[in-house]
């Protein structure tokens, strides 16, 4: 009964989505305010029924209803409760339902907070979100219904959740990632609504930007959590693999980064409108493309999900409708208006454009690398693979160039800057950065490594220039320090940019200075690596709720003093009889000691892998800073203004003379 109720709610939700995508648009077209005002109630209704459906599926998981095929696949009576709840979105069918739920959350949030915005515009935006939702409702109901029942021979036990997924990472990573992925649909809907109404003005950019920032910040968090999860749980010891599925979330992030900056230019200067619209369409299209790549199995990936061509076909169809529809609209209705103000070569607009182009080119190379095996295969030229060497060789130089510009953009003025003052402000920092970069690898590692010099030099340059700019900005006319002088969104920018600098430091150092040892160890053996001694004390048996494991106790010593006791495990999950390595990690800001237990060898000896990873934690710290920076910008006072925003083409002069965003 309960699953049928869930299924029924899902169908009712679809009905609401279809109504939402038609009625308000008819209203706008006929100037009928009554119909326009249906947008909000329909959104709430759609949300209610999707949430109900999702709740019922979760309930079925908790009570172990193995008459539902999806639950048999994903769960087991011995699975701890938090994983039962997380297992709802751990497989294909449930993750689609979760996708819709996330979309509805965004739509409801928009419906609740947009009372000050233009009624017809909001109706259009909600209608477009309704269309996207309807597409995914159809997808779920027609190809991947999570409520499908097993009629005969109902199993008494489930096949259990994939052991790799039984981890806190499953609880945190997908919701965050989905909030980001799906959140770009709001920016997309705003862009399409702007094209429909022909209103791509500063007010439009101001409405869009906080939503885009929110989605972008969530996506940042999702990607970093995914990277952290892969690092400590999968036992691979790496943190980024340039795998198609990782790239699928990274491309929307890169374009999203370009979009939030381009939006800021449109908001404050009225420039780059068509470009901004195009980026908004691209960000969401890449999110859909990511869904396609992950769900259709067209590419080989370490995230091997079950592939099914009919599902792939359906997503491709959704992708085609969304992208062809919006790009056709763009081609016909893109703004012909000349930008209200001009800018000279030496201005912030130029630097923002250069940074934007660098991000788009970087995205294009990642896209090319990801799709290349498919392209070559489709052209009948054989099968090839593109590995990390390609991505590192192409991506790093482009992003390095972008970082150079990124440090300067907040300092330079809008419209026009005198070159003399600029050199005075940054000249010294530039010289010191180059020297610092050149000296660092020699002092730290004892030998010169080009990429370390570039990475550290760039990080120094970005940090110093950002702080210098902040110092100028907090000094008021009387020469006193006043941290409240710049806007909150300015501080958000500072935090996020510093975060990027820290991530460069972390990535550079861990890539070049990590050390690794694979070795056979008997109980009592000691090995040393990078100034640490590791001693295998003993290996004991431990029992978990749904697995049994061998646990090694390995003490780590530094200068004869014990600094950590690491407990890596080798687990065997009882239902799926699948072996799993659980790494033992000791973290400080300076380094991680990472130990993974390999195969048992003869005579109680074990194969052990040990890593010393310097500064890897800077990566997670940087991710948190970037995310916090995004949220700070999003909650800036100017986006919370209670005043009814006026739709006009006029550039907001106050914002121009104020602080950069």
């Amino acid at each position, binding site marked *: 009964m309960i699953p049928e109720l869930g299924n029924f709610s899902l169908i009712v939700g679809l009905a609401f989505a279809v109504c939402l995508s038609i009625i308000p648009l008819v209203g706008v077209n006929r100037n009928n305010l009554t119909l326009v005002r249906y947008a909000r109630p329909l959104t709430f209704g759609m949300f209610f029924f999707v949430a109900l459906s999702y709740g019922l599926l979760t309930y079925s998981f908790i009570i172990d209803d193995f008459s539902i095929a999806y639950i048999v696949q994903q769960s087991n009576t011995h699975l701890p409760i938090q994983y039962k709840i997380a297992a709802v979105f751990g497989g294909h069918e449930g993750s689609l339902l979760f996708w819709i739920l996330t979309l509805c959350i965004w739509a409801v949030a928009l419906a609740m907070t947009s009372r000050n915005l233009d009624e017809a515009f909001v109706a259009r935006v909600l209608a477009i979100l309704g269309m996207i939702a309807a597409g995914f409702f159809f997808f779920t109901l027609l190809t991947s219904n999570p409520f499908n029942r097993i009629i005969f021979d109902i199993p008494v036990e489930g096949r259990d959740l994939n052991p790799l997924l039984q981890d806190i990472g499953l609880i945190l990573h997908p919701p965050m990632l989905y909030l980001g992925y799906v959140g770009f649909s709001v920016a997309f809907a705003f862009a399409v609504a702007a094209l429909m109404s022909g209103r791509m003005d500063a007010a439009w950019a101001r409405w869009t930007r906080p939503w885009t920032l929110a989605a972008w910040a969530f996506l940042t968090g999702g990607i970093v959590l995914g990277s952290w999860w892969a690092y400590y749980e999968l036992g*691979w010891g790496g943190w980024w*693999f340039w795998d198609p599925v990782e790239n699928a979330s990274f491309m929307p992030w890169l374009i999203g980064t370009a979009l939030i900056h381009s939006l800021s230019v449109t908001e404050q200067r009225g420039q780059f409108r*068509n470009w901004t619209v*195009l980026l908004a*369409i*691209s960000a969401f*299209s890449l999110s859909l*493309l990511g869904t*396609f790549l992950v769900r*259709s*199995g*067209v*590419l*080989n990936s*370490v995230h091997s999900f079950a592939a099914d*061509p009919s599902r*792939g*076909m359906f997503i*491709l169809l959704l*992708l*085609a409708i969304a*992208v*062809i529809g919006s*790009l*056709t609209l*763009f*081609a*016909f209705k*893109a703004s012909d208006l000349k930008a209200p103000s001009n800018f000279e070569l030496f201005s912030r607009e130029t630097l923002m454009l250069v940074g934007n182009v660098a991000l788009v080119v970087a995205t294009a190379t990642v896209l090319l690398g990801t*799709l290349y*095996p*498919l*392209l070559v*295969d*489709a052209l009948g030229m*054989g*099968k*090839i*693979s593109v*590995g*990390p*060497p390609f991505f590192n060789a192409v991506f790093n130089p482009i992003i390095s160039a972008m970082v150079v510009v990124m440090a300067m953009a907040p300092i330079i003025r809008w419209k026009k800057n005198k070159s003399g003052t600029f050199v005075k402000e940054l000249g010294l920092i530039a010289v010191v950065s180059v020297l610092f970069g050149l000296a660092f690898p020699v002092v730290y590692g004892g030998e010169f490594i080009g990429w370390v010099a570039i990475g550290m030099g760039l990080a120094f340059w970005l940090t110093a220039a950002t702080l210098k700019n902040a110092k100028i900005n907090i000094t008021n006319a009387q020469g006193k320090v006043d941290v409240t002088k710049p806007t909150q969104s300015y501080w958000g920018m500072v935090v996020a940019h510093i975060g990027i600098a820290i991530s460069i430091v972390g990535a550079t150092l861990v890539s070049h200075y990590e050390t690794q*040892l*694979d*070795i056979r160890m008997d109980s009592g053996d000691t090995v040393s690596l990078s100034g640490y001694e590791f001693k295998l004390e003993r290996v004991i048996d431990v029992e978990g709720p749904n697995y049994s494991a061998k646990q090694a106790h390995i003490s780590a010593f530094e200068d004869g003093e014990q600094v950590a006791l690491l407990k890596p495990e080798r687990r065997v999950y009882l239902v799926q009889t699948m072996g799993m390595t659980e790494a033992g990690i000791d973290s400080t800001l300076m380094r991680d000691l990472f130990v993974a237990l390999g*195969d048992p060898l003869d005579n109680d000896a074990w194969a052990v892998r040990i890593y010393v990873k310097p500064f890897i934690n800077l990566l997670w710290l940087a991710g948190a800073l970037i995310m916090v920076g995004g949220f700070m910008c999003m909650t800036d006072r100017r986006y919370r203004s209670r005043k009814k925003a006026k739709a006009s083409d006029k550039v907001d002069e106050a914002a121009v003379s104020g602080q950069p965003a």
Partner: protein
Amino acid sequence: MKRAILFFPLILFIVIGGFLYKGLFLNPQAMPSALEGQPVPEFKLLTVNNPERVVTNKDLTGEVYLLNVWATWCAGCKIEHPHLINIANTGLPIYGINYKDELEAAQQWLKDYQDPYQFTAYDVSGQLGLDLGVFGAPETFVVDHHGIIRLRYAGTIDENIWLNKIKPLVDTIKQEAALVVKS
């Protein structure tokens, strides 16, 4: 004219979409069998163990052997490695092709994990991999006593694959070779 440029994103997407559509009907796991029945492509490469030694097709033995494509950046290769050592211990020669890798990392790998290979050709440019139609590492080819590729296996070799797929073929080829000698 200016408006025409605005159609560019649309056209670009339609082209990409076409490829994605075609991709749905391709199986990335399925191997082109074009090279099965063909000789091992010509090559001339240095070896990982001794970067001054040049190896060519002539250095491959005249009996059945395995050709294994691997790289240190490939997670599957690490999983596969112990199985390769077991296979090498049965007396079947294995030749390695180190694919698009760094020399030092590859040398370290062979030092750390034991070396099951007769030699490993250092295919830094990926040219031999390209000629073999390799789409990723690890990949393994079974080559017979005439130097003809008889089987291509993409993916990690484990006990199951070895016993059910590769060993039977290797045994068949050995029998064929024995027949030739007798007759």
